């Protein structure tokens, strides 16, 4: 999954105050959220490819599931 240090750096990209701290629990939760997001995107892409009888998930299959995926998160 996502390393806590990486998640911390990603969050800090958007903080106005660089002194903002994020607790370990919050980092762990965010890392888990990102992991679930990626797995969900991948799995839905697979679902779409399988429905089309393909064995490769290409960008087209991801684009088809993208609107609903983004709305679900």
């Amino acid at each position, binding site marked *: 999954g996502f390393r806590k*240090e990486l*998640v911390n750096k990603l969050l800090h990209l958007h903080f106005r105050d660089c002194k903002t701290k994020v607790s370990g629990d919050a980092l762990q939760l965010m890392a888990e959220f990102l992991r679930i997001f990626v797995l969900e995107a991948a*799995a839905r892409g697979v679902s779409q490819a399988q429905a089309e009888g393909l064995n490769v998930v290409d*960008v087209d299959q991801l*684009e088809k599931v993208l*609107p609903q995926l983004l709305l679900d998160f």
Partner: protein
Amino acid sequence: KDGLLSEEEFNLWNRLYRLGDSDEVKGVALPRSHFQSLQEDRATQEPTTGIHQLSLSEWSVWQDHPLPTYQVDHSYRCRHFISIMQMIEEMRHEEDECSYELKIRPFLQMEDVC
């Protein structure tokens, strides 16, 4: 320790995942959206050659039914979106009269809007 890639991981990324000049698609981007109705200063981003711009509207016709999920169910917002797309699809084939307007007009009370 800093959360970034180690040398080994970097080499793996470079070999397996990195898109480059030898690839037909050199990169993927999700275009930024903006509010059409707001007067915003926005620099129009010209699409770069070889970069695939992901589209949220290319497959809009497919969004009139819920697509399968895995571990995360569809949100209320998503279900709302799907029902609107469904309504749009049904209305696409209408001629002259609008069925939505016909259904809702009997309930209009002018004192509600004036």
